[in-house]
Structures are given as C-alpha cells and as structure tokens.
C-alpha cells in the first residue's frame, strides 16, 4: 500500500515537472513574441525610447530562458 502511494507520488511530481516545463516553454515563445511586438510598436511609433523598451523585452526573453534551464535542472 505504502509502495503504491510512493509510486503515485513520484508520478504526480513527474507530471508536475512536465507541466511546469511545458508552461515555461510556452512562456519562452511568449517572450519571443513580446520582442517582435515591441519591434512592431517601435516601427509604428518612434518616440526615442524604443531601444530601452526593446532592451527590456530582450532581458525578459533571456530571463525566461534562464528560468526554463534552471527549472529543468532543479526539478
């Protein structure tokens, strides 16, 4: 009984790991889209601070990749 509970527990956390990694993978795609979106926005409206906004978007993308790798290693 205890063994089967342990197996269930392991499977549950494995599934959770897959779900989290899937989510983070989707988040990386989202962060990439944000970069593209900012580029489009800067193309449409330029008010001199486009580079700063783009830098934030790139930093956000790098952070998303870092979190994915970190989660993959830690979980």
């Amino acid at each position, binding site marked *: 009984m205890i063994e089967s509970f342990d197996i269930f527990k392991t499977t549950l956390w494995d599934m959770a790991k897959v779900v989290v990694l899937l989510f983070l993978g989707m988040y990386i795609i989202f962060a990439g889209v944000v970069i593209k*979106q900012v580029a489009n926005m800067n193309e449409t409206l330029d008010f001199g601070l486009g580079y700063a*906004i783009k830098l934030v*978007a790139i930093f956000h993308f790098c952070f998303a990749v870092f979190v994915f790798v970190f989660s993959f290693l830690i979980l």
Partner: protein
Amino acid sequence: MPVVYNAKKDDVDLKSQKKPFGVQEEATTDKLIKKDNISGENGKTHKDLDLKTTKSKDNVTSRAGLFSTYCINPRNVNFYHKDSHEKIILLLRRHLITNVPWAVIAFCMLIAPFFFSLLNFTEMIPWEFKTVFVIVWYMITIAFVLEEFLGWLYHVNIITDERIMEIDFVNLIYREITDANIDQIQDVTVEMGGIWRTIFKFGDVVIQTAGEVPKIRFEAVPDPDSVAKILRDLRVEEEQEKLEGRVR
C-alpha cells in the same frame, strides 16, 4: 484676432528652460498662433515672454518622455506613414491614473506568494517545486505588467496639422491604426464624468468624421477641453487654408 489656446504639458523645454514634471503651463503652436502668448509662473508678463518666444516660436516644443500623456509639439516623435511636411501638434496618451487598477493587481500579485507560504498545505510540496512555482508566479506578474504597460505606452492619439490618428495595440498580434483628415472632422464632443475624471481632469474626446471610420475616440486623455479647442482651431485654420487655396 490671435488664436490662442491654453494647455497643460508634462515636460516642456522652452529655450533650454526645463520645467518639472506635471507643471501646468500655457503653450502655443506656431501653426495656430499669429502672435505668441506664453505665461510662466514666475511673474513674467505675457509681453516679456512675447519678446522671447516670437523670435523662436518653432522652438516651443516638448520632449515626449516615457510617462508623457499630453505633449505639445513633440520633437522626438515619429510615426508610420508620416508625411515629410507633416507636423505633430499633440501627442496624447491615457491619463496616468488609468494605470492604477492594473498596478494594484500587479502589487497584489507581487505580495501573494508571502501569503501562500503561510498556508499549511505548502508543507507537502517539495522545496524545488516551491522555488519554481514562486519564480513562475513572478514571471506571470512580469508578463502582466509588461503587457499592460506596453498597451498603455503605445496606445497613442496624435494630432498633426493634417490629420488625427489613433494608434492602438489591442493585443500581442493585433495593431489598429485609425486616421482622419482634419477637414473630415464634423463634430467634436468632450465626455467627462465621474469622480476620478473630474478630480484628475481627464476624459474622452469623441470625434465624428466624414471618413470611413465614422467615430474616433481619444480615451481618457488629460485636459480634453483643450484638446477639443486645438481641434476646433485646426479646423478653422484648415477652412482658412481652403479659402486661400493653400491646401496641400
């Protein structure tokens, strides 16, 4: 008869004299004004300032910053499909106060993990998952803030000497640009109601046009009365140009 309008600006650089954020000031555009009238808050008379500004009315410009919501003659703004001779008279964004609702939500999201940690059921979650969940939670918060902020920053209303424009990024992949020529404007309505709009002096400017898009709405812009006045002056100016045969 000189055509004059008064307006509030976020930041103005008038002859290298920088004004602090939020200072109210009267300003003029060279297109509208035959004789400049600019009053400062330091006891300078209109006459004193006339001497300074008449010579340099093209210099009466402001710089659109990250948080500018009402920017007259912005010198650092350019937009898609802008004609080379076209001059931007006014750049508008929604009033800063309209960001408060999502800022409050973001703040709640920011402090939420501290309250979750107080709950008993978190004891049975392995520490690795706890760490990752907290990071993921903050990533969602960052995404939320980024989207809301970008949505506010790039949703602008532009008035040029030729047309009015609304640029809106509805979501990640949808961009909407609406424009109408000044001479197509039929009616301008100012809608300003409610406690917050009255206190912070912002509202909607609804512009009915004879173009394909019958109605353009400048949402929650600061000082909508002066915006309506600028539009009215531009229409008069456009009519005058038509009569004189100076239409581009």
